């Protein structure tokens, strides 16, 4: 097990290093997030709908799209020069490949969310500071859930035709349940409801995370074995 974790971390480090050196993907994802937030601003009538009413949806739709971009990239990277074959030939457990990719994706998406959240608060004048702690918790729980499924699916779709289109089609039905819970939890937080009201949503999100991380971990070898 210690080996699996060590190899996973090596792999995540490699992915993040590639990312850090080129910075193309992360910059595109951040710019994309800003643009989506701006589109939302023009899509609403500020005199008719208060920003706080729309805020949870805006936040989550933006992050969903951004995560989708990040996930498409994860295995595309390995397709160049048959890097994936090299990875599979390496004397490491398949599960550590999944874990590594999952960690790299999580850090990537978290970075995008880290830039997106303050901008969201700024653009829509949403007071997030008083609820920052719980809000970050909701963000983390929901992100882990859909990145776990997304990492598994992107390993498959990357090697098909129409990968960029197929991933959202397959993944969105799996993203929407945690998304619904996260939107409801965020709405309750921004409306200043007590934390106890959130417990149900958080529990559902946590259950989703545990089940799907485990499932993806178990199923991943089936997607790469020859």
């Amino acid at each position, binding site marked *: 097990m210690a080996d699996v974790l060590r190899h996973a971390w090596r792999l995540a480090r490699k992915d993040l290093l590639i990312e850090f050196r080129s910075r193309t993907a992360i910059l595109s994802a951040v710019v994309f997030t800003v643009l989506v937030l701006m589109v939302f601003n023009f899509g609403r009538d500020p005199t008719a709908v208060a920003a706080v009413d729309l805020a949870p949806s805006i936040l989550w739709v933006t992050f969903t799209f951004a995560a989708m971009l990040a996930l498409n990239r994860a295995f595309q990277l390995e397709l160049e020069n048959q890097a994936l074959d090299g990875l599979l030939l390496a004397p490491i457990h398949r599960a550590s490949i999944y874990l590594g990719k999952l960690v790299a994706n999580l850090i990537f998406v978290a970075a995008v969310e880290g830039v997106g959240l303050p901008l969201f608060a700024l653009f829509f004048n949403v007071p997030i500071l008083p609820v920052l702690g719980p809000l970050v918790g909701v963000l983390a729980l929901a992100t882990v859930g859909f990145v776990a499924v997304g990492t*598994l699916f992107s390993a498959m*779709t990357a090697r098909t035709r*129409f990968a960029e289109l*197929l991933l959202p*089609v397959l993944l969105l*039905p799996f993203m*929407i349940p945690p998304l619904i819970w996260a939107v409801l939890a965020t709405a309750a937080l921004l409306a200043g409801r007590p934390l106890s009201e959130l417990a149900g949503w958080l529990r559902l999100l946590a259950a989703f995370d545990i089940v799907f991380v485990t499932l993806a971990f178990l199923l991943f070898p*089936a*997607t790469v074995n020859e």
Partner: protein
Amino acid sequence: MKLLKTGRWITAVGLALLAGVYVRALAFTPVERFQGPAQKIFYVHVPAAWCAMLAMGLVGIGGILYLLLKDPRFDRFGEASAEVGTAFSMVMLTTGPIWAKPIWGTWWTWDARLTLTLFLFLLFLGYLLLRGAVTDPGLRARYSAVVGICGLVLLPFIHLSVYFFRTLHPEPIVLKPSAPSLPGPMLITLLFSFGVFTLLYVGFVVQRYALAELREQAEAAHA
């Protein structure tokens, strides 16, 4: 070919019995007091929903068995079950709004249970699209098994969210912990319809399975 014939026979018997369901539902089952004749669609809608769920469940179980045993028959079964499930969820998604319009006054609401059925339909579509996008048969079988299993695991989660929302959809009246709260003649019609729809599911799947087998033989002959 024998399998295809068997499937055709099962389907033929199922279709004949389906006519029986219609006759019984329309002529020999009392009209519901509050909903009037609109309630009759219930005898098609509920069994179709049952078959769609059954199909998704079996796609998932077929996926598990495929990954464990690597037997291509389970993959063929999954493909067949997913296609038949898509058809049944279409029936469910068209009969629902037809009933909802006169009773709720709207074709569609974002009710938890309606959303669930839409998810089910989209899951089937995603599964079939993935199958279409992968050309290598071994890879296709493994990928679709993975998606099928994830779909199976997702179903209870969508069900769970039903309990957290206020729902417009009628509560379960047959498959619930206490005794069915449906008058005798209506219950008999419903159970009869359940049986017929399940038979139709079996008939369609057997035919679709035989077709997949024939296609594979044809492809092998070409190669």
